[in-house]
């Protein structure tokens, strides 16, 4: 690897990491502000303009607080669990392309931590790995409530991961028909969503030329299933009985100070990552009008990132909106929704998609 390439890789990773930290700070603040608006309150407004530094203040406070270690903990696992939560959360976002690649000299710079050709598989692997942090945190605390919380969280995460994975498979199958063979690379999935549906179906071009070629239109059912599943996957309301803020018997009950802050950080990083993945898979990622030629070059180079953030924040806003609206599900309702509704629906949609795709590729089996 030559030196310029090395620096470019370093730049990509650091920029992605920095973006993720920055938006996480903003997200915590934005959630509190939006929830306050929805509940006729004012919300944080003292730290910085509009209270935008509230998260920084809270983080500093947690950083300087004593991290209490209860007597009965399994120390090794207890200390390891917060890191197991944070590391996969950051690694997931490394797969997501958050801007259009551009050239520095002869070297292409992709605005993406790393473009793995098994990107989606890696995402699924990392989100499964995050379950370990939950179950280990619950078990190693040496207390019954975190243990119960950890067991509940594990059951929830595993159930909804199935629905999430099946929804992803439908998208992957569909994407394979949109270009040259199948792919799991997120950069390639985004590339195949550029343009409009008018380019694909010339017969309906007058209407469809205004419809962007996003996967959400042919895969709307998969999108809904995926969205519900990622709400549960990130332990957000109405599926937040993992931590249950009001009852406070979650898996991180015995954590305090910076160790708790790491679980908190992981949760918000996961929200952003998962919404970014949803935007990438279904809403065309960074695709969008760049007005090339009519606006300065820098603006049209930055616009894809703006589109990406706008789509992601639209989904995040829906997260917050749902949190302000819905009461928490009971545990049996949670399991019922996961196993009896979402997974059958995802399987049915998968079979339907497969049938349509093979029909279009090979014709009807009886002909």
């Amino acid at each position, binding site marked *: 690897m030559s030196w310029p390439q090395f620096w470019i890789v370093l730049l990509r990773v650091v920029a992605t990491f920095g973006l993720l930290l920055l938006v996480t700070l903003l997200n915590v603040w934005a959630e509190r502000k*939006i929830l*306050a*608006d*929805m*509940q*006729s*309150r*004012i919300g944080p*407004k003292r730290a910085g303009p509009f209270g935008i530094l509230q998260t920084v203040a809270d983080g500093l406070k947690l950083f300087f607080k004593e991290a209490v270690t209860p007597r009965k903990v399994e120390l090794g696992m207890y200390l390891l669990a917060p890191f197991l939560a944070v590391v996969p959360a950051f690694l997931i976002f490394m797969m997501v392309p958050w801007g259009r690649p551009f050239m520095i000299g002869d070297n292409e710079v992709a605005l993406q931590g790393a473009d793995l050709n098994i990107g989606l598989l890696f995402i699924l692997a990392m989100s499964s790995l995050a379950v370990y942090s939950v179950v280990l945190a619950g078990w190693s605390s040496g207390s019954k409530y975190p243990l119960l919380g950890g067991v509940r969280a594990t059951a929830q995460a595993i159930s909804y991961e199935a629905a999430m994975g099946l929804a992803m498979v439908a998208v992957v199958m569909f994407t394979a028909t949109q270009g040259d063979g199948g792919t799991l690379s997120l950069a390639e999935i985004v590339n195949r969503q550029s343009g409009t549906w008018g380019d694909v179906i010339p017969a309906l071009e007058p209407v469809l030329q205004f419809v962007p070629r996003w996967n959400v239109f042919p895969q709307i059912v998969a999108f809904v299933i995926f969205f519900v599943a990622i709400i549960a996957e990130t332990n957000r309301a109405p599926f937040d009985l993992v931590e249950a803020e009001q009852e406070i018997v979650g898996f991180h009950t015995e954590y305090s100070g910076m160790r708790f802050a790491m679980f908190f950080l992981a949760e918000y990083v996961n929200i952003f990552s998962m919404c970014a993945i949803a935007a990438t898979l279904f809403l065309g990622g960074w695709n969008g009008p760049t007005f090339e030629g009519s606006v300065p070059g820098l603006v049209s180079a930055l616009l894809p990132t703006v589109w990406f953030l706008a789509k992601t924040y639209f989904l995040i806003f829906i997260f917050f*909106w*749902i949190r*302000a*609206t*819905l009461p928490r599900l009971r545990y049996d309702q949670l399991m019922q929704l996961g196993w009896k509704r979402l997974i059958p629906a995802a399987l049915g949609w998968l079979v339907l998609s497969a049938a349509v795709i093979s029909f279009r590729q090979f014709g009807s089996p009886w002909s």
Partner: protein
Amino acid sequence: MGLVKELIKGLRVTGGTMLRTIAGGGLVTTEYPKEMRVKPQRFHGRHVLNRYPDGMEKCIGCELCAGACPADCIYVRGEDNDPENPTSPGERFGFVYEINMLRCIFCGLCVEACPTEAITMTHLFEFSTTNREDAVYTKETLLMERDGTVPHMFPDDELADLSELDTADGWMRATAPSGVAAYEGTMMWQGTPGPADWAPEPSQEERDRRSGEGATDD
């Protein structure tokens, strides 16, 4: 499908509330230290020991407030007045007067019990202290000044709202504004603490003469 319909109905409520709040209406909270909510007229806040307009203390050291207190937080010790230089218009005055604010439940029974309306309640409600001794309010803290102003625990605090002390839960003068014991029983109400904003009442003879009746007794 009913579930989806209900979901959309709920989302409309929260979304509508958000738009209303952003437009600047319907807030149910205030920015507390910066912006004080107007408290009800009869708010039960910190106590104050009143004076007559001539500077006499109203408290006569009878300890009825201490007896009425359900939380046992008032401690009073009376002392005989110096005839040459009386502290209160009565025989005795409150020599020691202490209220333990950690125990007080702000029921207002002391105010009810007081025969001379010496103790009333203000609108002050910020009692934070850094040690327990400071929570026991002594006579210096409770007794109003001779000019009618009420002492504030932290008058120099930038957040202290001294105007809270001007409105109390009905300032009543149990006797004539002059404080002469002969006028006991003539009650008058005044909206704020401090010297009366009305003219002194006429003497008993003056009033008897005005009503055309002679002195009946003595």
